[in-house]
């Protein structure tokens, strides 16, 4: 439904409240459980030094990172799905995450760290973007099926390169690399850059929402209704690449968020991108915060990679929703 403006806010408000609740939950749960009273004390600037360190330096940054990464991945997935008019599209399927992973792993393999890994992952994601869009375009048409197939093949290629890198890398680096490949938030540093990016992108996408709705009807129909199709397609792809690369460099490669969250939201809220995109940011964030909380607590003090949790949550949910919608 083209949602009237006053109807946009209730679902977003509900999702925002759910997100806050999830963040609060993630702060109280962990290897050392804290009560809400402890959290409240720290929030007022009191509480024990241990609780302060635990909450302010460890849990809050990690939870905010999880929120940002989940939001980024869900928005990137929703954009890809509009671009390809295919609800199964996602940055992972199109090989963006693969490219970012190869970039990051190459930096790790070379023994480099920090900003170099980030930059290298960005480079990998953009190389993947150019490769997929360049090859899919070729001399002929730029059809969604061709794009999707190219993406799948390129992703498979990156998968092989990743396996090769793992095979030749020294044994002591393997655990870090593997955890990172499965998605792990314990390496994430400041949550503010990805959070800021998420907010900026959501605001930038707002005026494009209706054009995206028309794009979802196919490029010819969109062009006939006054959309500059090719520039918009490139904008979507570049924005989705930036979102994915940021998510991957923050937390490694986490699957299914970009696929499951937009799909679930579309089943409930319809397909107006002006509602779906901000809703994806909130719901994707909430999902990953909960998943990361589970990953930290399920076999505490050991931690699971959060990618395992998203897959375990995502796959059955997706199948169930798909089954119910028939």
């Amino acid at each position: 439904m083209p949602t009237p403006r006053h109807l946009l806010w209730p679902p977003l408000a509900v999702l925002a409240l759910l997100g806050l609740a999830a963040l609060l939950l993630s702060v109280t749960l962990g290897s050392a459980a804290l009560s809400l009273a402890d959290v409240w004390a720290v929030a007022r600037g009191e509480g024990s030094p241990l609780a302060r360190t635990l909450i302010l330096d460890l849990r809050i940054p990690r939870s905010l990172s999880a929120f940002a990464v989940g939001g980024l991945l869900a928005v990137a997935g929703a954009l890809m799905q509009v671009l390809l008019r295919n609800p199964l599209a996602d940055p992972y399927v199109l090989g963006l995450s693969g490219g970012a992973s190869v970039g990051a792993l190459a930096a790790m393999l070379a023994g480099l760290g920090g900003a170099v890994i980030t930059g290298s992952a960005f480079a990998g994601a953009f190389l993947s973007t150019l490769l997929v869009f360049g090859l899919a375009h070729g001399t002929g048409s730029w059809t969604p099926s061709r794009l999707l197939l190219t993406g799948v093949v390129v992703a498979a290629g990156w998968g092989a390169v990743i396996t090769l890198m793992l095979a030749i890398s020294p044994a002591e680096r393997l655990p870090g690399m593997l955890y990172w490949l499965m998605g792990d938030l314990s390496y994430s540093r400041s949550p503010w850059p990805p959070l800021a990016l998420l907010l900026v992108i959501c605001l930038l996408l707002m005026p494009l929402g209706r054009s995206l709705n028309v794009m979802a009807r196919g490029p010819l129909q969109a062009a006939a209704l006054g959309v500059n199709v090719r520039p918009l397609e490139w904008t979507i792809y570049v924005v989705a690449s930036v979102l994915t690369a940021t998510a991957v460099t923050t937390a490694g490669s986490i699957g299914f968020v970009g696929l499951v969250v937009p799909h679930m939201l579309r089943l409930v809220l319809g397909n107006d991108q002006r509602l779906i995109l901000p809703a994806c940011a909130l719901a994707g964030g909430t999902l990953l915060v909960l998943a990361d909380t589970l990953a930290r607590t399920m076999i505490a003090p050991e931690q699971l990679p959060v990618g395992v949790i998203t897959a375990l949550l995502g796959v059955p949910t997706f199948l169930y929703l798909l089954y119910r919608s028939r």
Partner: protein
Amino acid sequence: MNRLDIRELVIDVPGRRDGRALTLSVEPGQVWGVLGPNGAGKTTLLHTLAGLRGPRAGQVLIDGRPLAALGRRQVARKLGLVFQDRHDGFPATVRETALIGRHPWLSAWQMEGGEDLRLAEAALERLDVDHLAERLVSTLSGGERQRLAIATVLTQAPQIWLADEPTNHLDLHHQSAVMALLAEQAAEGRAVMMCLHDLNLAARWCDHLLLLYPDGEACWGPARDMLVPAALERLYGQRLATAEIDGAPVFVPVK
């Protein structure tokens, strides 16, 4: 002015020689029919006129301004196209599908307002699909989808109508209703051009005809000059019997 000028236009049909360049004007109040066998380039022509693909040569002018110099949004405010094929991406209701016709008229930050909704509802009612407003497009029949596509362009409210086989999938009553709607648009001062397969609809409703031959040849002019049995028989490679019913010529294929 609501006119479409076609100057020395050669459409780009892959693997076909240029043939005869088209030079004609679709003026306000005129209803043009484009006739030709399968693969003669009717759809390609309409897409070229709408600026969705480039011509091999020549140019198209809307109100005297070259199509290439106009932005997509300006073109969409002037010219609407009823597509022959439609693709379902994501599920959408009939009402929201009609409402996308307002896209060229709204600024980026604007939401569809009451006036837009009213136009969409009126268009759905005019095409006799208002009772389906809440239904998902994917659940409609072929004819209902066709009427929805026309309702979407009616919501867009262009001054120049291009319609690719607007009577496809329609029952007899709705065929007549759609042709009457297009004729009414022309009578209100808009320019109309449509591709048709049904010679008899063309003979009854169009005042000008463009015949496209598969080899790139073409001829055009007032309908009464174009509806010559010999020319039509050559166009379709089919013998025709002719009669006159209700003041219009009727063509029936014979064995």
